[in-house]
């Protein structure tokens, strides 16, 4: 027999949040409604899971199409087309929930409503935000939205990705490419280093005598030993790395002169890819879910905001402890969050979850490395399960590297099919 869900005894053991959601009278006898903002890896997954669980769900998305970031470094390096990254929302429109093609302009947490760009209001019993990131155009002197036209970030895939690819292809043979990497936290910790690897591969094979200077605002980074070993093996003559300790933090850019400055030096670039600092997508801050860091503290079991009850935050926007900001994480978090929301709406206590992340990177075409982790709530944050996870072996034979590259590509095809297909 199913456990009686509406039994008062069961509900009595639950904390305030769940009881409040169930007892809310505003919607009368209507079934509970969940609104999800952002049809990316996190939000689209959450909406699918909620609908599969029988929950009345609306998914709000502003963009005309989704352009996926995983794999987009290959587009930058001319190894694949942007079509391989681009997905329509048609299938999501037939997935058993309401797909609302609009911008979520504001959230009123007290009234539990989301206001859309056209003024329409969507009421919710629980709200899930997966808005991804905003690039901070106020953080690096000289770097604003206009500067990004000359010095692309390509950190939100789409036109920016194509622009950077085009600039690299058009660059003179002996040119200089600058790639600037921000301090933590930012979307996709290993992403800049995969980009450095693939640009170096592009220069080595297509632009002899050109070089790449990586200016880093950090001294340590994800999969560092693996990247450094690959760079020493493959790109010694192409790639120069300047870590924080050697003055790698960019302090200013001049897009008109194509100059990138640090406290110690000035580099004239032919192509400059500037990855600026980031924060949670605007709507998260508007809803009151972001703290002073610009990111959203959450309960690690339910992903409910620590700041605003009734709102859950998943994906890049959330502060997920040891879990990195990745599409893999966003997908895994969305599944756990959706189940927790179903449980809370049904007056059931959510389970203590376990989540997995894995990110593959290419150091060259067909040459893959990975980092994996298993996470569980510990002291209010998602922490690594000790003994699990870690990076690929440093001494893996070529065949294993090729296998990892193939698994990474397979993951991309499956995840994009499961989310958007």
């Amino acid at each position, binding site marked *: 027999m199913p456990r009686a869900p509406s039994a008062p005894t069961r509900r009595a053991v639950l904390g305030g949040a769940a009881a409040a959601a169930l007892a809310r009278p505003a919607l*009368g006898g209507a079934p509970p409604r969940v609104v999800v903002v952002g049809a990316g890896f996190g939000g689209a997954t959450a909406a699918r899971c909620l609908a599969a669980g029988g929950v009345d769900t609306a998914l709000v998305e502003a963009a005309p199409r989704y352009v996926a970031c995983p794999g987009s470094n290959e587009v930058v390096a001319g190894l694949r087309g942007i079509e391989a990254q681009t997905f329509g929302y048609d299938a999501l429109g037939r997935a058993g929930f309401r797909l609302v093609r609009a911008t979520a302009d504001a959230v009123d947490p007290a009234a539990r409503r989301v206001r859309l760009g056209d003024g329409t209001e969507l009421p919710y019993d629980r709200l899930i935000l997966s808005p991804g990131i905003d690039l901070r155009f106020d953080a690096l002197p000289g770097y604003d939205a206009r500067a990004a036209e000359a010095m692309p970030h390509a950190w939100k895939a789409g036109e920016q990705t194509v622009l950077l690819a085009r600039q690299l292809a058009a660059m003179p043979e002996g040119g200089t490419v600058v790639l600037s990497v921000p301090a933590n936290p930012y979307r996709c910790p290993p992403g800049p280093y995969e980009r450095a690897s693939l640009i170096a591969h592009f220069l080595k094979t297509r632009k002899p005598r050109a070089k790449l200077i990586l200016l880093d605002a950090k001294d340590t980074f994800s999969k560092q030993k693996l990247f450094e070993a690959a760079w020493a093996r493959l790109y010694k003559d192409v790639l120069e790395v300047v870590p924080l300790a050697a003055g790698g933090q960019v302090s200013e850019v001049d897009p008109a002169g194509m100059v990138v400055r640090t406290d110690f030096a000035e580099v004239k670039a032919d192509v400059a890819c500037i990855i600026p600092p980031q924060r949670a997508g605007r709507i998260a801050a508007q809803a009151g879910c972001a703290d002073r860091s610009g990111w959203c503290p959450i309960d690690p079991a339910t992903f409910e905001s620590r700041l605003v009850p009734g709102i859950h935050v998943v994906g890049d926007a959330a502060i997920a402890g040891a879990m990195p900001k990745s599409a893999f994480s966003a997908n895994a978090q969305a599944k756990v969050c959706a189940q927790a929301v179903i449980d809370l709406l049904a007056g059931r206590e959510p389970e203590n979850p376990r989540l997995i992340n894995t990110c593959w990177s290419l150091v060259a075409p067909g040459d893959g490395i990975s980092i994996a982790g298993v996470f569980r709530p510990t002291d209010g944050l998602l922490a690594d*399960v000790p003994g*699990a996870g870690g990076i690929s072996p440093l001494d893996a034979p070529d065949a294993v590297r090729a296998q990892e590259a193939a698994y990474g590509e397979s993951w991309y095809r499956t995840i994009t099919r499961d989310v958007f297909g």
Partner: protein
Amino acid sequence: MRAAPAALALLAALVGAAGAGAAEMRAPPGASSCTGCHARGAAMGALAGRPEAEIVAALAAFRTGARPATLMNRIAKGFDAAESRAIAIWFASQGAR
């Protein structure tokens, strides 16, 4: 109480969808992450509908290192024998999709 019908309607949907108790239909901790890789058509293969013993044995072999792997060894170490078994039972009970 006015919320009761809402909760019941939801649960009815859940129960209907699973054909089993709503509590039992919840995947054990970790299982929902496995399907990020293990899905129909993926190089990693789907887990749904595979015999429990097969999954349990594979996870144990990955955990000890007896079975070579590019990354399942790193993932399997995040689950002890009991947790692995719960996951295996759950996948075995899912019809192959």
